[in-house]
């Protein structure tokens, strides 16, 4: 082709939402205008991960990353690519003046990352199978079909130590072996792409940025266990990902990579998509199976496990998107290479959605064993606005909070479990001193109550009762009895719920109670919320020493509960006050105190 430079415009979720498409169009126009179309290629790629500073544009081979790009910057960027062009300094990343104007490899955000799952995201055009193939795409499949037997693939997976990335961390080779050994003419492989945790978009970015990695992985999976049909169960709220998958599947078919006699190996395999319908619970594997079967998405008891008795009663391998994404590269680079990354028991990398009160938020992929401190402070750039770190919520609605004292634990399956947290799908929400732990527990509980399928009593009623109790605590009606009830209900839900949703829903409540019990007690006994989140527990009081009686607050008060004489200190009627905070905001003399 002879291109001398490449302009990668990130088309990931965050950047795409902020007009990265217009940037792409404009750069195209500018390249044409400057007569550079044959020298410089502009590509719409998958997620580069630096979502907090998007839209981002990457220039290769120069390894320049422009952040917060606007559509109007297109001209400047293109001109910088001319022979005598200089990089556009103002668009370079520069958070604190100390890390100035760095190029990609030097950027803290990327330094400690190791992109295996996201290897192609931000590098290739996800809608072009040739670019996937050019980067060793489908070579893993070739190796599986022609060099290794199904047993050989399982050996390679065993060596790699790959564990499921959906949350449970079950050894992938073992699950595949169960299904391989099960006696049945018909078997299935399924990719669980029903990513439902609030704020999680790892799977979405993987699929949007590199759909072929999933396709190739599932063909390998089918070959290994003896399945000829694969399903990708993907949530309907991901239309772009769905479209990319459909395109990838069609391209694969056209290239003889799906369908009959793949690459002349005499192995038949094909993939169908199945869309979700807005139920988080359908990410639970047995509810997912029910959904594909056309039934109500309710879980069923295990055993029997899907590996032996799954879709329509047949042996089925169900793996998370991220687990699948690892398969092709394990086959091309070998299980031994993969097992050199990570810790003793947790091999490989994990993609995290690092969000919340950090400076650099976005998708990060790190080797397992990286500490939380490294992720939050090195990669994440520390807490925004110089505030104090309070806790990290790991694993979404099924996970727990990790307080400061555990910042140096390595992130792996076992260590997190010991703390009462889980890695889950990889959601990592960072909280600071202004976040209230009861509020966080309540938020996750509300989600769980909304998404509970309703089948079993412990989750259906227990979840609602937990939410009620947390509500009471957050509006100042909490009693110490509520804490006892919370513990009782959490224990019942953990032990007696039918599926993982109900079993893990108590985790945010239990972990916040464990590490931040003092906050609960403050809310209950003092009726105070020191982080200022629980509005009902706030009181607004006028400091008589500072108040000059200008009456501005009284005029603005929506319930007219402030009274006084002109030029004498005013008072707020606490019984009528609705804690809206208007007086606090309008007072020019800082005379309204919020406590």
């Amino acid at each position, binding site marked *: 082709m002879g291109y001398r430079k490449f302009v990668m415009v990130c088309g990931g979720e965050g950047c795409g939402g902020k007009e990265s498409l217009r940037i792409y169009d404009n750069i195209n126009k500018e390249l044409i205008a400057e007569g550079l179309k044959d020298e410089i290629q502009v590509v719409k790629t998958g997620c580069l991960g630096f979502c907090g500073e998007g839209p981002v544009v990457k220039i290769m081979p120069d390894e320049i990353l422009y952040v917060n790009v606007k559509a109007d910057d297109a001209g400047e960027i293109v001109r910088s690519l001319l022979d005598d062009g200089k990089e556009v300094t103002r668009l370079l990343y520069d958070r604190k003046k100390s890390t100035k104007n760095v190029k990609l490899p030097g950027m803290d955000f990327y330094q400690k990352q190791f992109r295996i799952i996201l290897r192609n995201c931000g590098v290739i055009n996800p809608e072009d199978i040739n670019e996937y193939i050019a980067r060793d795409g489908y070579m893993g499949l070739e190796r599986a079909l022609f060099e290794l037997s199904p047993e050989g693939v399982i050996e390679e997976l065993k060596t790699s130590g790959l564990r499921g990335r959906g949350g449970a961390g079950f050894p992938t080779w073992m699950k595949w072996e169960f299904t391989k050994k099960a006696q049945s003419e018909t078997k299935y492989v399924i990719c669980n792409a029903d990513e439902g945790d609030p704020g999680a978009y790892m799977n979405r970015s993987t699929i949007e940025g590199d759909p072929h990695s999933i396709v190739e992985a599932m063909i390998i999976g089918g070959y290994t266990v003896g399945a000829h049909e694969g399903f990708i169960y993907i949530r309907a709220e991901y239309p772009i990902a769905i479209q990319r998958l459909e395109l990838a599947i069609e391209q694969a078919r056209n290239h003889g990579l799906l369908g009959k006699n793949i690459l002349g190996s005499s192995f038949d395999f094909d993939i169908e998509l199945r869309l979700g319908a807005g139920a988080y619970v359908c990410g639970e594997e047995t509810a997912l199976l029910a959904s594909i079967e056309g039934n109500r998405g309710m879980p069923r008891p295990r055993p029997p496990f899907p590996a032996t008795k799954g879709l329509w009663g047949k042996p089925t391998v169900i793996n998370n998107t991220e687990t699948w994404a690892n398969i092709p590269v394990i086959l091309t680079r070998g299980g031994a290479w993969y097992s050199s990354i990570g810790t003793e028991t947790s091999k490989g990398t994990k993609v995290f959605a690092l969000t919340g009160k950090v400076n650099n938020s976005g998708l990060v992929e790190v080797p397992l064993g990286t500490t939380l401190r490294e992720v939050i402070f090195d990669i994440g750039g520390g807490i925004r606005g110089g505030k104090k770190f309070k806790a990290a919520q790991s694993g979404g609605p099924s996970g727990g909070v990790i307080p400061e004292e555990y910042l140096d634990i390595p992130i792996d399956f076992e260590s997190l479990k010991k703390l009462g947290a889980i890695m889950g799908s990889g959601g990592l929400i960072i909280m600071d001193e202004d976040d209230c732990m009861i509020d966080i527990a309540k938020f996750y509980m509300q989600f769980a109550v909304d998404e509970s399928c309703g089948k079993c009593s412990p989750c259906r*009623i227990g979840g609602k009762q937990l939410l009620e109790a947390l509500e009471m605590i957050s509006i100042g009606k909490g009693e110490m009895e509520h804490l006892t009830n919370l513990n009782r209900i959490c224990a019942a839900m953990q032990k007696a719920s039918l599926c993982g949703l109900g079993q893990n829903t108590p985790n945010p409540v239990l972990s916040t109670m464990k590490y931040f019990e003092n906050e609960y007690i403050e809310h209950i006994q003092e009726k105070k919320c020191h982080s200022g989140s629980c509005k009902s527990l706030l009181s607004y009081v006028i400091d008589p020493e500072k108040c000059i009686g200008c009456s501005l607050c009284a005029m603005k008060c929506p319930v007219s509960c402030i009274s006084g004489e002109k030029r004498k200190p005013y008072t707020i009627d606490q019984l009528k006050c609705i804690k809206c905070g208007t007086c606090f905001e309008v007072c020019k003399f800082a005379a309204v105190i919020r406590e």
Partner: protein
Amino acid sequence: MDNVVKVNIKINGIPFKVNNDRTILEAAKLVQVNIPKLCNHPDLPPSAACGLCIVKIKGSARMSRACTTFVEEGMEITTHDSEIFEIRRTVLELILSNHPNDCLQCPRNGNCELQQLAGDFGIREVDFPKLLVNHPVDNSTGSIVLNPEKCVKCGRCVEVCQIMQNVWAIEFIGRGYNMRIAPSADTFLQDSTCIKCGQCTAHCPVGALYEKSDNSAVWEGLKNPDSHKIVQIAPATRVALGEAFGLEPGAVTTKKMYTILRRLGFDAVFDTNFGADLTIMEEASELVERFSHNKAELPLITSCCPGWVDYLEKFYPEMIPYFSTAKSPHQMVGVLSKTYYAKKMGLDPAKIYSVSIMPCTAKKYEITRAHEMFASGYQDIDVVLTTRELSRMIKASGIDFLNLPDSEADSILGDYSGAGTIFGATGGVMEAALRTAYHLITNKELGNVDFIETRGLKGIKSATVDIEGTPVKIAVAHGIANVGQIMEEIKEAKREGKPLPYEFIEVMACRGGCVGGGGQPYGATDEIRKKRAAGLYQDDRDKVRRCSHQNPYIKELYEEFLGSPLSEKAKEMLHTTYHERPLYNK
């Protein structure tokens, strides 16, 4: 299960051997341990919903549900310890926090599985606030009442209606805390596919689904000094009513039932079994007629079960021509009581108040099903009471049912043969019809009148019966889900011009036949159905006359009033028509 072997397990430290096709719940019973449960029912695949049956298995950090976990070699199970008890108690309290407190006014007072659990667990207070749902009651069918406020979401009714009955009239609607049981498509029950069989009411552990009670109407009716009050009792009721008073299932309480009904104030007591004998006269004649005329009119399908009638009209209207046009025994006694009986006794039929005691909720629908149910010129039967409702009336009356003296029915419409009484069991109609068909075809009397191949709980029973050289292919189905297969086989044979797989078919909507009816005392399992049926077969054996055509009062009825089976008068009084109905009403 591939191969069933005996495995060694321990429950609470007690070692024993049990087949590995047993769940822990079932195995525990063998060592006298009843693991608490609310949603589980032996008739149905386990729901695994309530969370009460959790147990500990050595080697597992989790607790498992005993209802769905099969035993394995070496399994060591703990069914009761303080932690398990505490979890179960919390789950029960959660369920109670979601349930209204009005036991004292609930139809299940004293007979409720949740009440039993709360009592057994010694619940004295519920620490959690009351969280009740606010959904309206659905009484649209006039037979079955759905009260979502009391529902514990055990899922039994959904499984019954979908899997056991294949009617799909009830479904879970909504998600999570807002999930509720509702008629499918969230319509009213009357507008759904519901056939009013009442199996949902018979399986509901609490007071969320129950029969619409007509007790107060009957108390009122009994007060009227001007009316002539008559009552008939169905075969299946006599072997089940006693259960409400502590008797074993299958205990035959016929003669005490006659007595109690007179004591309650009825002027005449009839027996639906008489109607059964009459139905046989009409239907066996129909069978012989169709057999000799034109085999294209076959198969003949029984029509005495109103749930089945509703099902056929909705799901298989194309099969209507094969239905027997004979009414049910119930309706036959009804119409005759306001015509034949009224005439004979010189009574004004307008003043006759006719009540029936049925094992069935669909009978409440049957009495207004079609205009032929008014063939007497009045509504032939005024009120239907289920066995359960009668048991409550008896208790309210204060009369000591168990110690009543025996009495007889009014034989004019109350005498019956052994063939009549076995109508209450699956296969009974078929057997009764064969006994008389034999006589009609050969003009002889059978030596051995027992047709064992019609009996038992197998979902579809089929056989070829030899009537002196004439083979008759029969099929007996019970539990409506089993009907589909038979219908499809027949339709296929007709389409392809092949000989019919069955020529005479009996269908009962409820498993076990009417003994397992939707209005029978609670707690029916296969074991109880067998015992109740055994009671009927014993009643049959105790009779001198075991065939319908031998009933002298039947003969008298034809001589004096009807003429002969299938006569014009018989057609006018005792036969009905069927019409296609939509699956859903708009």
